[in-house]
């Protein structure tokens, strides 16, 4: 399976990928994007099975990415891994079709809890 990880921080992408391995999802192909706009293009080209995205990113943020993805007719499972998780943001994520929202810092167990359904 293919997982798209979108985060403007190379450090965080590295941690997400490391945590994926720690959670037992080693055999999957991971593709990376630095912002929502790049992630949207990659999602269209690569058709990942799961998208894991930061919320705060330059150029196109995670919510805008999710909205654009759904507007393009793509129903790829999409989850946020983000620092912010106010009730308003959780509601926005839910309203726009996000499957989950994981707050940083996170553990391998957090990933398993949300990813097992998709991977």
């Amino acid at each position, binding site marked *: 399976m293919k997982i798209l990880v979108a985060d403007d*921080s*190379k*450090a*965080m992408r590295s*941690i997400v990928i490391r945590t994926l391995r720690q959670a037992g999802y080693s055999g999957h192909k991971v593709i990376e994007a630095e912002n929502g706009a790049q992630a949207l293009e990659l999602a269209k080209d690569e058709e990942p099975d799961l998208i894991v995205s930061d919320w705060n990113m330059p150029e196109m943020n995670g919510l805008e990415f999710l909205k654009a993805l759904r507007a393009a007719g793509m129903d790829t499972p999409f989850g946020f891994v983000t*620092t*912010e998780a*106010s009730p308003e943001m959780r509601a926005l994520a839910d309203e726009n079709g996000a499957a989950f929202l994981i*707050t940083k*810092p996170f553990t391998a167990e957090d990933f398993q809890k949300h990813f097992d359904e998709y991977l």
Partner: protein
Amino acid sequence: MNIGPNEIGEIVASVWATMLGGELFALPGSIELEGELISGEIHMRGEDGFEGLVRIVASLPVAQAAARVMFTTDTPDDRDATDTIAELINMIGGNIKSLIAEDARLDLPKVTHGQPDTSADAAAIARADADFIAADHPFRVTLLRMR
């Protein structure tokens, strides 16, 4: 909710343990930050007028040690250290924000090599500092509330 050094310490310890896993020691008093430094800060702004910032000032070896873990490399470069500090202050700031101004928004983090620009600090109406040692070197996390 007001945040003091103890609450900052708990948040930093949680982020450190979860993301980096290395030893971290909270220091009861303030320490001298000397040598080559790297600084990161992130602003929080609320629609109700709330404004604050969270800052980290670290000895460069702290950033390099953290970057070694984050990037799984023995030889992190300057960009790795910069990215690591940005992500640490993003996580620490986000967790602090959730306690004091949940509805506020975080700006993107900014990182500079050297001492931070502290010219705005005098305008702060509240301040809390927490000092730590990691990888045998010091760093400080500061919360400032401007409005």
